[in-house]
């Protein structure tokens, strides 16, 4: 009730302003409706992760379109019901600039000015963790965008935030055995790490699990985030006496560092491993470099062969945008779907009620098969796809960069709850 009353007031006041400005007589504004729900979308439109943010935004917009029309994957999940509990979804998109401060500022505007029922987005862990705090402080639900650090659902976890991307622990535990099987157990690895939560978290987890397989970590080179010229770092890496280059860099930084690594001859000397491959990484470095590279992708359109919902998602996305979806689009779409489903189950859009339902862990079938949230840390239990870069001649289509080697079930790689460091604050 509170939410609809709030949105009524907002809409009325907004309409009043607009009508007054356009010279309409005041009494006409009674048509304002309380049959809409506002959600705030925070996308990295600028900055180092803007390409990833672009697909995030596309995923959200398709999800809301499908939700309001009762079509696509939404139609299947919600049985053709339109909107959420009879209300149409309205939204605004804000640019986070791939920085925590603007992200928090815009999220706060969505909460205070637009009376958002929920907000969602972010591509960098730094932004996502900051927005998680905003969600907790304002007691408004936040469905995270992309974020790969363990901290997001670990020491920085919040009751009002739910993360769908696999965390660093899941990625590393799933990837390390495959690396050992394919590349051998006696590898000497050097790491390039962006200097913030995501980078350190993924590097630490990768080291832990590859060392269990028998690998040696010979060096770790830490670069500030963002960086454009990696020459000094790569010179150190080239001289590190390693045979495997584990690149943790992401987004534009991942592309720049890898291309420069090729120029410095690093990729000739060493096998490249990219544990968490960003949305347009392969396009940026090109298929010549991508071929033979091991890593994980949170999702790929290739999964449409395994999951029926993925097929529907790929088809409707391709129809709308003319290109196949990347993994940030999948995260965006599915986060909206999970939220909408939880609202129906809770028969409420109030954040506290929705959180209660999400914590019950009902599996919901989406583009990654059945997924659900773990109550203790709000990490999604979901599979981790392990991929190998295709050689250019093996590609079918210009975005067909990866072969899926294995899809590791989520349950088998979840971090034990007592090790996450997460203590959820009360509702």
């Amino acid at each position: 009730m509170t939410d609809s009353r709030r949105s009524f007031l907002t809409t009325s006041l907004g309409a009043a302003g607009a009508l007054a400005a356009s010279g309409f007589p005041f009494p006409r504004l009674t048509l304002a409706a309380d049959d809409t729900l506002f959600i705030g979308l925070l996308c990295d439109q600028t900055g180092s992760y803007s390409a990833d943010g672009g697909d995030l935004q596309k995923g959200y917009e398709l999800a809301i379109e499908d939700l309001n029309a009762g079509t696509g994957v939404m139609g299947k999940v919600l049985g053709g019901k339109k909107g959420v509990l009879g209300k149409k979804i309205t939204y605004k998109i804000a640019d986070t600039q791939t920085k925590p401060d603007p992200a928090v500022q815009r999220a706060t505007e969505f909460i205070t000015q637009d009376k958002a029922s929920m907000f969602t987005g972010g591509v960098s862990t730094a932004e996502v963790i900051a927005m998680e705090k905003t969600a907790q402080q304002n007691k408004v639900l936040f469905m995270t965008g992309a974020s790969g650090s363990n901290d997001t659902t670990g020491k920085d976890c919040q009751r009002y935030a739910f993360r769908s991307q696999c965390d660093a622990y899941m990625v590393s535990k799933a990837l390390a055995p495959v690396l050992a099987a394919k590349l051998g157990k006696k590898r000497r690895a050097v790491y390039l790490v962006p200097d913030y939560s995501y980078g350190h978290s993924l590097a630490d987890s990768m080291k832990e699990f590859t060392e269990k397989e028998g690998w040696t970590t010979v060096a770790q080179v830490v670069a500030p985030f963002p960086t454009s010229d990696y020459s000094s770092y790569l010179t150190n890496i080239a001289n590190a006496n390693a045979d495997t280059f584990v690149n943790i860099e992401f987004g534009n930084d991942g592309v720049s560092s890898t291309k420069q690594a090729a120029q410095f001859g690093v990729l000739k000397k060493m096998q490249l491993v990219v544990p968490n491959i960003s949305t347009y990484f392969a396009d940026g470095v090109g298929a010549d470099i991508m071929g033979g590279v091991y890593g994980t992708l949170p999702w790929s359109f290739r999964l449409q062969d395994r999951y029926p919902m993925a097929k529907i998602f790929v088809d409707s996305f391709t129809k709308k945008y003319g290109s196949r979806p990347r993994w940030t689009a999948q995260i965006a779409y599915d986060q909206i779907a999970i939220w909408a489903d939880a609202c129906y189950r809770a028969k409420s859009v109030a954040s506290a009620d929705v959180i209660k339902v999400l914590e019950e862990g009902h599996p919901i079938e989406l583009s990654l098969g059945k997924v659900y949230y773990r109550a203790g840390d709000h990490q999604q239990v979901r599979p981790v796809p392990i991929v190998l870069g295709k050689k250019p001649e093996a590609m079918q289509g210009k975005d067909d960069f990866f072969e899926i080697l294995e899809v590791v079930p989520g349950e088998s790689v979840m971090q034990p709850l007592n090790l996450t460091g997460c203590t959820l604050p009360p509702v």
Partner: protein
Amino acid sequence: MDLHLVAAQLLNGVALGAILALVALGLTIVFGLLGFVNFAHGAIFTSGAYGGWVVYTKTGSFVLGVATALATAFVLGIVIERLLIRSYYNRPPEDQILVTFGLAIVIVETIRAIFTGQTQTFETPSWGNGVVNVAGIFYPQYRLEVIAVVAVTLLAIYLLIYKTRIGLIVRAGIDDPLVVNLLGINVRRTFMFVFAMGAALAGLAGVFDSPLLAVNPDMGTDVLVQSFVVIVIGGVGSFGGAIVGGLIAGEIISLATAFIPDYSQALLYVAMALVLILRPQGLFGVVGRS
């Protein structure tokens, strides 16, 4: 400490410094002659990179790409000078900073609207592929070629400024624009040419830097900040200052990054602060130039 590693890092510093010198030279010429602070210089750098990238990927000719980058930046320089910058020559520096800052946002966002924020692949030209053995150091061939190209460009600009009539006017204009104007020389057209030439240098740096970094709308940001530091270190309006300042900045960034990474971000600015305290006019600057 491994001597080869130090030598390789020194080479990195030269390569980085060469690009910075090229960007800073354009900036310092415009600032020196026109007294104009151009915060859009980084955006022009980016526009050159994109112009070069479009033509290079379409035609496969790096030379055509470079020509396009030069042309893009030069024409962009003329257009913004005529439409916007001209009205700001006699306004206070804060107005100039605001208007060029806004202009930079418009240019960068236009690029983003056309090409998306995605990082574009700018292939190293075929003659730049490979690693060269320089006295036991294995170093990317293309970076060595960039150093050579920048050296030749700087020489050409030097000859233009110090050995030609237009250069004479430019230098006279730097010293005293009023007198040059009184002598009946069309200072406005000279100003426009100088502004466009500064822009072209940024565009050239952009296209040569592209295979080294990556082409994306935000690529000019770091370069702009660092080239301002170069000017402060080298001295405003000084040709030699831009080059020496560029090399000093390149070496500081490169060596600090490699050997004391925790301080790498700060050290460049510490150096700048030291110069400002000990020699406020910069290493090659002249006292009292406004």
